[in-house]
């Protein structure tokens, strides 16, 4: 059946070429439907409990993303006429930012004070030009003593200031909304810098993070993909010395990627930062198929076969192993579906789809192109064949040393797996070349972090927030939060109520307390609310029924475990203070923290399942239980060693790295499959000794194994220069694991085989070995027919 197809391909290469290109063109047409979603929420499935909690809280209060302008005057003092005027102007301009609903700064802070029996509520900074030195001092005094402002809008020393713009993205057109805001905001920054040469301005906040997601992915696509193509061309061109082979390989790669992304578009996928690396992975993996077919073809041609016969022979010999490695690799990628994070599921599915297409294309259009185009064989590769022979000799000679040494190193490195710590800090998703990262780091050093928890405290009854007991609880809770070492800022309605109480008592500092009756609190809040301007209302802190309030707590940038620890301390405090109110905690930071934690679980599940399924597939395909069992060790060891090395190098693990285990497992298996199948072929079909079989396996697949591994390692290493650090880490860890896998396959597997195979020749195991041989004979006969 397959032979008929191969014959057709070789006889009618032009038809095949045209048909495949046509189909690929149709498929790739869907790419126009493929849109990039730059929103951190894509990391969470709609059923994710922390996302649901957060969305519900946003519906009760107000839904918001934000932009921070961090203003850093070089003279180190925000409270000058010049700087206040500029901040006031920026505040005013910021109301023009698309979808902005609120702007908070030190200048428009609603300062309240008593004037006889009047309650005066006005902007903290009004007419800047008329301010005297005394006025400036007074403003500084007020701002630096205002809990709502310190460490949020202005630093304790008054040397930097933040303008916080709340943005409510309608979500009607997610593709254009974020860039629209970002462009406007950058324009404002440029204007600000032009008018204030003595100031630095940084942009942070959730909108800028979303922008960074799409921009760093776009930059990656523009640099990494061309770089990868270049490397592929060089590798195939130089190592296999063939122009036709290079052209044909690049064609297979391009149409594999184009068809995959096109089908993704037809199927309604959207792109995200993690899934946008799918083309690079497909590119890397597709090369292997081409390399295997090319090297067998050249081998046959060197043996004197005519080109078309050599192509046919190569397809025949490679069909089973390439199909098998495609299946196992796809299983590894499909196991990424156990990830809690949809973009990683998408990535797994896209790559799995891509490598299946690459398999089909490398069996059809690839030989068709090789048939059409001229192919010349270079004779002078005996050098590296010789090297492989030498390597095999070395390994056999040193087998007694290699087996224990490599085993010990493997175990020692694998034990370092425990040095990894779970951490999904979204600020660190980007490296220092990304402006968002620099801005957020600068903000953390100078004023406050970006880790935020929103805590909603529900009194359980309408207008219940005015109950003195409730207010006292919230106030005590806020005080306790402020005492925590990680806390930078707490925004709470109790501060506002205390301030109004002080105002109503002639600004007597000792009256900065909570009202004694429920009615008084309600009436104070009404009075204050009636005095507020557009956009600066209390609706972001109080729900419509006045039954619950929301505290917004800003922390230093915390790791996942630190944040979860804070969350647990809050729960514990609540329990210890016999809290009768329902407390909900939610925030993007918390969402990332929890997904980081659950990623470890999904890592274990996906790896176990990948391992089991892959072993079963190998056992079935090779019709050998022994084969399946032997392959377990060299397959699993590289993953453990890879994570062990990571523990020593970096040790930070999150949702992105959790998928690496199952993914690499699928790829690592390929080397084992190729090596073992050649080894057993030599032992059984050719009746060679274990030593001879090792020589045979090295001579046959050693070269293509190291070439494909080289391409894979380089391909994933290219990913590691991405400015999107999770993709970079994913690439680096995969590259390390694949390199380790090759080393283990070369230095550990052969000595292991020699050790095991010797004991196999004893009588006790004879029957098992015979059964295995019969099975593999059957398999080969079936293949030949």
């Amino acid at each position, binding site marked *: 059946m397959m032979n008929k197809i191969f014959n057709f391909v070789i006889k009618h290469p032009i038809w095949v070429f045209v048909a495949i290109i046509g189909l690929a063109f149709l498929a790739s047409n869907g790419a126009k439907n493929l849109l990039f979603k730059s929103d951190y929420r894509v990391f969470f499935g709609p059923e994710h409990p922390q996302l649901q909690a957060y969305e519900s809280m946003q*519906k009760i209060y107000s839904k918001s993303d934000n932009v921070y302008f961090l203003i850093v005057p070089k003279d180190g003092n925000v409270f000058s006429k010049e700087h206040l005027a500029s901040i006031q102007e920026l505040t005013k301009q910021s109301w023009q930012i698309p979808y902005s609903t609120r702007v908070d700064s030190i200048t428009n802070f609603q300062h309240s004070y008593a004037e006889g029996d009047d309650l005066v509520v006005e902007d903290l900074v009004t007419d800047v030009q008329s301010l005297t030195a005394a006025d400036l001092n007074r403003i500084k005094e007020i701002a630096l003593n205002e809990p709502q402002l310190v460490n949020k809008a202005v630093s304790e020393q008054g040397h930097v200031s933040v303008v916080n713009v709340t943005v409510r993205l309608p979500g009607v057109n997610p593709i254009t909304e974020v860039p629209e805001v970002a462009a406007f905001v950058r324009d404002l920054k440029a204007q600000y810098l032009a008018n204030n040469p003595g100031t630095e301005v940084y942009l942070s906040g959730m909108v800028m993070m979303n922008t960074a997601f799409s921009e760093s992915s776009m930059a990656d696509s523009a640099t990494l993909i061309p770089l990868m193509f270049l490397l592929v061309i060089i590798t195939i061109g130089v190592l296999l010395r063939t122009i036709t082979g290079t052209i044909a390989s690049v064609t297979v790669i391009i149409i594999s990627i184009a068809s995959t992304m096109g089908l993704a578009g037809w199927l309604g996928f959207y792109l995200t930062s993690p899934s946008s690396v799918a083309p690079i992975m497909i590119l890397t993996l597709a090369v292997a198929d081409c390399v295997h077919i090319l090297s067998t073809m050249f081998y046959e041609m060197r043996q004197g076969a005519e080109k078309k016969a050599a192509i046919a022979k190569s397809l025949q010999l490679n069909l089973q192993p390439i199909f098998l490695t495609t299946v196992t690799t796809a299983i590894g990628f499909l196991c990424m579906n156990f990830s809690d994070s949809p973009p990683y599921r998408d990535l797994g599915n896209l790559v799995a789809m891509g490598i299946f297409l690459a398999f089909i294309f490398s069996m059809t259009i690839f030989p068709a192109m090789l048939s059409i185009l001229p192919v010349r064989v270079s004779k002078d590769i005996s050098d590296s064949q010789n090297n492989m022979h030498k390597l095999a000799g070395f390994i056999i000679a040193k087998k007694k040393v290699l087996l224990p040494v490599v085993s010990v190193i493997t175990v020692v490195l694998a034990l370092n797996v425990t040095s990894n710590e779970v951490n999904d800090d979204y600020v660190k998703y980007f490296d220092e070349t990304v402006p968002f990262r620099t801005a957020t780091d600068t903000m953390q050093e100078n004023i406050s972090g970006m880790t935020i928890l929103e805590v909603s405290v529900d009194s359980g009854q309408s207008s219940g927030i*005015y109950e003195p007991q409730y207010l006292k609880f919230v106030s005590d809770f806020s005080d306790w939060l402020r005492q925590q070492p990680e806390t930078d800022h707490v925004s709470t309605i109790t501060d506002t109520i205390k301030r109004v109480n002080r105002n109503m008592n002639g600004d007597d500092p000792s009256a900065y307390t909570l009202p004694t009756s429920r009615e008084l609190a309600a009436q104070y809040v*009404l009075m204050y609310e009636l005095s507020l301007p557009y956009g600066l209302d209390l609706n972001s802190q109080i729900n419509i029924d006045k039954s619950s309030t929301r505290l917004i707590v800003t922390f230093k940038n915390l790791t996942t475990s630190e944040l979860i620890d804070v969350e647990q301390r809050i729960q514990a405090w609540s329990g210890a203070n016999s809290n009768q109110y329902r407390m909900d905690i939610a925030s993007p930071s918390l969402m990332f923290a929890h997904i980081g934690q659950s990623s470890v679980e999904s890592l274990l599940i996906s790896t176990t399942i990948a391992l089991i399924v892959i072993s079963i597939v190998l056992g079935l395909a090779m019709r050998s239980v022994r084969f399946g069992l032997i392959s377990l060790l060299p397959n699993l060891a590289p993953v453990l060693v890879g994570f062990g090395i990571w523990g020593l190098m970096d040790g930070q693990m999150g949702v992105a790295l959790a998928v690496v285990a199952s993914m690499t497992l699928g790829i690592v298996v390929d080397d084992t499959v190729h090596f073992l199948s050649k080894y057993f072929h030599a032992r059984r079909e050719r009746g060679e000794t274990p030593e001879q079989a090792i020589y045979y396996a090295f001579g046959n697949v050693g070269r293509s194994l190291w070439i494909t591994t080289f391409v894979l390692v380089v391909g994933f290493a290219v990913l590691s220069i991405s400015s999107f650090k999770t993709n970079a880490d994913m690439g680096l860890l995969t590259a390390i694991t694949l390199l380790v896998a090759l080393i283990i396959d070369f230095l550990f597997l052969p000595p292991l085989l020699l050790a095991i195979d010797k004991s196999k020749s004893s009588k006790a195991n004879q029957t098992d070995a015979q059964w295995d041989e019969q099975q593999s004979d059957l398999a080969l006969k079936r293949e030949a027919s």
Partner: protein
Amino acid sequence: MLNLRKLTHCTLLSAVMLCAHGVLAMEGAQKGLEISKEYKSRDTGWGDSSSEIKMILRNTEGQESIRKITFNTLEQLSDGDKSLTVFVEPYDLKGTAFLSFSHPVGADDQWLYLPALKRVKRISSSNKSGPFMGSEFAYEDLSSFEVQKYTYNYLGEEEANGLQSHKIEQFPVDENSGYKRRIVWIDKEAYRIQKIEFYDRKDALLKTLTYSGYNKYIEGFWRPDNAKMVNHQSGKSTVLEFYNYQFREGLSDSDFSQSSLKRLR
């Protein structure tokens, strides 16, 4: 020479066109103003009025909250109207009274009586665009219409609530207004406001207010039973239901004074 002539020609032509445009704009402003004046004049002469209002607030999570107030107004012919809002529900605000003297230009005078404190406090703030009792109505949406508060542009005729209406653009004069502009639909039949669209300072549609259930009271003054404000940006909404309209009950300035606030119960 020819070129010069052509140039003059062109200049003249564009000048004429510019003028035409200017005239049209002026006509639009004039017509908008005239219709607004007509609206105001038709709603002049009712003296004083009172009504009970039920406010129903809803958020996107489906939660609902109810407030009740009584609302008294005293018509002022040469200034903005005086109004007195007495809170009935929620319970904590019962007896709280808000007195406001609105002015066509500049800050309103506002006082609040706090029963828990048994004192009247003056609110000194030029802000009137914040949410009223946490609802989607700003105080400025509830205060009386005065011709001087806006500049105008006539946009044409359009159907609103099934009635052929004048569509007028209004630009607030007060810089403390929360809006850049409003678009108002006034039906041609009886000059009642059918619908208002509010545009925020960046000129994005913020809210739509729709009136319904108009009834005619004494000598032909129309009042709605229902006003629904939908905030398009937050998805929240507030419905006002009006009950028990009363006119010409003989209210006077002394009922709208600081000292009158304490007497209310």
